[in-house]
């Protein structure tokens, strides 16, 4: 069956430290992959999306970056975290355009 794995569930990092969040998808090939950030009690902000290996579209210019080294792997990174990077990060995928999105359980990042 198709599943999505996102980890860790919770992360506390000091300001200025690096970040690496990983998301992997099982049971499908060539999915579209998405990274969203959700501030407390707010909507989802699209950060990055990818339609294929090595293809990354950035929606929000900031100190975050994304990479897709393998078909079903999507990584969100930062070289130096800011306090404003705190939030709930969600990975999602769709099998093809105009279909439903499946979400991971999210990573709650607190930058201290």
């Amino acid at each position, binding site marked *: 069956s198709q599943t999505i794995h996102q980890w860790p569930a919770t992360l506390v990092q000091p300001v200025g430290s690096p970040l690496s969040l990983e998301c992997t998808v099982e049971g499908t090939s060539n999915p579209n992959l998405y990274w969203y950030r959700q501030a407390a009690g707010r909507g989802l902000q*699209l950060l990055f999306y990818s339609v294929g290996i090595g293809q990354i579209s950035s929606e929000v210019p900031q100190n975050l970056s994304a990479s897709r080294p393998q078909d079903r792997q999507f990584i969100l990174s930062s070289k130096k975290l800011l306090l404003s990077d705190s939030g709930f990060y969600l990975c999602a995928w769709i099998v093809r355009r105009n*279909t439903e999105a499946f979400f*991971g359980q999210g990573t709650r990042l607190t930058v201290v």
Partner: protein
Amino acid sequence: SQQGEEDPQALSIQEGENATMNCSYKTSINNLQWYRQNSGRGLVHLILIRSNEREKHSGRLRVTLDTSKKSSSLLITASRAADTASYFCATAGLNRDDKIIFGKGTRLHILP
């Protein structure tokens, strides 16, 4: 920027009553989707309505779409305590950019 805007931002109703949430969007779309999020969790897809559809049902859910007004509504009938959650609309645009943009959500609280 966000495409969808839900209203109300928060809604409290008695168990058994119907709950109606609305979503407005700005640009032409290919489809509109509704998702549910329990506190601190990932989003779960509820229903997708295509731009050439006007109404769609799934169990206790009824979604309407008015492309002339660029708006959609989600109706939950005979609400239950377990329906307490945040509800988001999301749109996929006509452009071949594969973006899925979410609104800010409606927080629904079902009172016992």
